[in-house]
């Protein structure tokens, strides 16, 4: 069990003018931990995720990341180039809509290979081999390597986006509703795939979802957000089986039993 956190979040708030995005969020994330952030639309989940992943600047508070050299760096004080490098190598970001995370008009193989080139890989044969290996791991036929993601189904695009993010062996992956908009059978396959990869690679992940079943299946810990604040957090099965807060009880009791 690693003893130092990978990510330290201290009192992060984000205001849009006088409107609250998220407020006073603090937590620590360790390597290999999967944290789910749940809550209804507008509760501040995505704002928080954006603040953590440097896509938005928090209004106040500090987010620190444990770099590979063993130092903690304040993300807000990092240069733009350094931040972009981090995003492309040590981090992954899986968007709800795969079109936001993929380049739709280049081939599947190039989508995966691009991130490898960003970290300095130049050997075409190696890049192509890594790309086919990853397509296989996310269950996309290697014969589709030269096709553009435009020609892929929603589920395949989402799997391709995951391959593109994981090819550089990131240590931390952010996911924003990774199964949103997919039909149930495709969701099950994707969830199983993500679960396996997170386990095998020892990834830390922060997953924003409004689907409690996704949180149950993938996460170790969860945070429940309402009106921009974290109202309850803890071990995922504890929060779901013994919810304490009124809003969490409402969420859990609203799950439809099939």
């Amino acid at each position, binding site marked *: *069990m690693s003893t130092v956190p990978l990510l330290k979040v201290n009192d992060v708030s984000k205001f849009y003018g006088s409107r609250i995005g998220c407020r006073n969020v603090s937590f620590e994330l360790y390597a290999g931990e999967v944290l789910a952030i749940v809550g209804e639309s507008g509760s501040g989940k995505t704002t928080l995720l954006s603040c953590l992943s440097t896509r938005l600047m928090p209004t106040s508070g500090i987010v620190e990341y444990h770099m590979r050299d063993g130092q903690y760096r304040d993300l807000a004080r990092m240069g733009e180039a350094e931040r972009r490098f981090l995003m492309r190598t040590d981090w992954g970001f899986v968007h709800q809509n795969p079109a936001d995370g993929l380049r739709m008009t280049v081939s599947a193989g190039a989508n995966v290979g691009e991130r490898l080139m960003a970290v300095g890989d130049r050997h075409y044969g190696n890049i192509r081999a890594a790309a086919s290996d990853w397509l296989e791991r996310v269950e996309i036929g290697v014969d589709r390597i030269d096709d553009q993601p435009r020609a892929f189904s929603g589920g395949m695009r989402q799997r391709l986006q995951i391959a593109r993010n994981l090819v550089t062996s990131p240590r931390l992956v952010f996911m924003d509703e990774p199964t949103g908009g997919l039909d149930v059978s495709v969701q099950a396959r994707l*969830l199983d795939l993500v679960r396996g990869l997170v386990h095998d690679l020892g990834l830390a992940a922060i997953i924003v979802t409004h689907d409690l079943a996704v949180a149950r299946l993938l996460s170790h*810990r969860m945070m429940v957000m309402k009106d921009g604040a974290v109202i309850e957090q803890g071990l995922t099965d*504890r929060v779901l*089986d*013994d919810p304490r807060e009124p809003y969490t*009880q*409402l969420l859990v009791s609203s799950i439809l039993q099939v």
Partner: protein
Amino acid sequence: MATPLVVSEVAKSFTMHLRDGIRRPVVANVSFSVKAGECVVLGGPSGVGKSSILKMLYGNYGVDEGQILMDHDGKLVNLATAEPRTVLEVRRTTLGYVSQFLRVVPRVSALDIVAEPLQARGVAIEDARARAAELLSKLNLPKELWSLPPATFSGGEQQRVNIARGFITDHRILLLDEPTASLDAKNRAVVVELIAEKKAKGTALIGIFHDEEVRDAVADRILDVSAFSPRKAAA
């Protein structure tokens, strides 16, 4: 060796906010300990809080008051207040649980579900699967089912997958929530035998068994949970 499990003055209530904040006390002043190699059976009528106690011991239910102390790798951990990652670490190496129902994951085979806790402890997948196969055949689960996800299995078949998964590791503490509820006589006997093996190895077991025959065969001590009824404590 330290006592594997000491429970002291634990209390639990549920507050139902959606029902006008009704507070429903479950148990109060729960205190007991379990020695290595001992099997303690929680007794008492339905609804008295047996399962709730087991779930608190597993960290699945929150604890309002008191301590749940476990000997985890030579260190004392209070599960009632431990951080989520500590609870997960304790579950991985020290604390096992056989629930009444199997929570199935789509697309994962019965064999891999059983092998997973061993794999999580760093055992190679082939070895873990071999051990899983051994347990499943001992529990008479037909071999043709091993490679299938258990979603379509019968209640008794799922239960046996669940038992195998709980018994595959050498956790020092094992919680059993009616593991024999949906089993036939032959398989109940297998479970009794597995429990005897665990006791011989020094595992501390805490269980709920409604089947008297099984209970008499495995229990070293029966703990009457109605003694922890909060109404009684208040009187």
